[in-house]
């Protein structure tokens, strides 16, 4: 027995897949439904998982002990002032706090977690190791330097800089190829998830096959 939920799921899946043939009202219906439900889900989640336990719960539970939470609450409300033209400038106050916080967090995080360890990883040995390792290390260093120089735009890419940049383009092309291969794998996984549902959860029970 196939449940009504499975039927609905299958119908909406086929509506979305029908776009591959051409745009049609079924696809637009499913697309709008998906967008609306996602937004509703997100609002509900933000209310239940963020606002209630972190703001309203503590404020209603123990106001005198948590009145400091009124500050982030006010900043949050200020963000919506941008929809009132006369006081739209006030939204910038909240944005300034928001950006300041993120710059502070991200600055250290990027420096400590990316710039320094990634830079130190490009300092590689070329002596005292096997021949193949030397080759890989040379390729690695050439790749890093040539790609960095490709993104150096303060001088015209002519002469030596132009030739090194060309090498950088080759390294970039290879990395784009790897990304493309992985992207196909990701998209096929999604297609497979839907097809697997249609075959194993909808059609097989429908025709009585195991």
């Amino acid at each position, binding site marked *: 027995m196939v449940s009504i939920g499975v039927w609905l799921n299958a119908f909406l899946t086929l509506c979305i897949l029908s776009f*591959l043939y051409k745009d049609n009202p079924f696809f637009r219906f499913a697309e709008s439904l998906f967008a609306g439900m*996602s937004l509703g889900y*997100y609002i509900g989640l933000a209310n239940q*998982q963020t606002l209630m336990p972190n703001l309203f719960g503590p404020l209603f539970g123990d106001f005198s002990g948590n009145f400091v939470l009124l500050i982030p609450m006010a900043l949050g409300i200020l963000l919506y002032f941008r929809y009132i033209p006369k006081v739209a400038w006030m939204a910038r106050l909240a944005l300034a706090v928001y950006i300041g916080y993120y710059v502070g967090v991200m600055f250290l995080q990027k420096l400590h*977690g990316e710039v320094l360890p990634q830079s130190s990883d490009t300092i590689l040995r070329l002596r005292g190791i096997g021949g193949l390792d030397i080759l890989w290390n040379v390729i690695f260093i050439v790749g890093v330097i040539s790609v960095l120089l490709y993104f150096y735009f303060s001088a015209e890419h002519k002469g030596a800089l132009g030739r090194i940049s060309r090498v950088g383009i080759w390294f970039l092309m290879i990395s784009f190829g790897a990304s493309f291969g992985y992207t196909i*794998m990701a998209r*096929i*996984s999604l297609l497979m998830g*839907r097809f697997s549902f249609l*075959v194993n959860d909808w059609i097989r029970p429908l025709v009585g096959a195991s």
Partner: protein
Amino acid sequence: MDAKKLLYVDRRVIYLLVAIGALIPIIRPIGLPTVPTEPVWNLFNRIEELGPDDAVIISFDYGPSSEPELNPMAQAILRHCFQRRVKVLVMALFPLGGVNMAIGQLDRIASEFDGLEYGVDYVNLGYKDGAQAAMKRMDISIEALFPSDVNGDPVADMPVMAGARNYDDVSIVISLATGIIGEYWVNLVNAQFGVPVAVGCTAVSAPKYYAYLRAGQMMSLLGGLKGGSEYEKLLVDKYDFARELYETPEVKVSSAMAGMDVQSIVHLIIIVFIIFGNAMYFLMKKQEKEG
């Protein structure tokens, strides 16, 4: 042969061939071999070293859109941890459905093992907003960040939390990630607190994680469905219960190993079309030259 006509073949023909290529292995699995790679071995071996006195964090940082790719990975890792009786702290830092993924997978996998007790062997801490702030707070106290579990029950009295006060008590963090939160675990938690981090990510984000892996900032990377299939293979080869489980139809059809049949066939179709498109392009150029 008119190369131009062949070069501009209707895209729907390609869609149809990809659909057939994807459907055939789903209806009749082929069982192509899976060969585990070193990054996947690293995580498997690390969990093999752990036991009932150790705790791991598994962060469900993905939503329903990445379910086909990351669910098999999550299931295999949870099965391995539960088999080793490692204490598991599950949480979700991804807003759009992460906590639902965690609830669904944890309940399903925990029910497969006898003697596992909620609050003693594992706990679902639920979702917490503000990924970086949450990660920083856990260095001081996990319980302070998650005073109650996903059901709203206080975690203070749960035995599982006694052995996991902060990052010092956590043997490894495993993030199953669809977006940037996996990166935060690496460039914030690993970099600032030194906690070993493994990331199981969607295939589309795997290339960027290789830079972290190479630099030693991550101890393991499971990239997309392939990473999941490799982990399943290791589990199946090592444990009899897993071999029997992955032979059952319900588990087999949703496993990453079965999914890799589809991947292989569709990749072959796409490679053929890339070669065909390039060959037709050069043939067309030649025909244009010849007038």
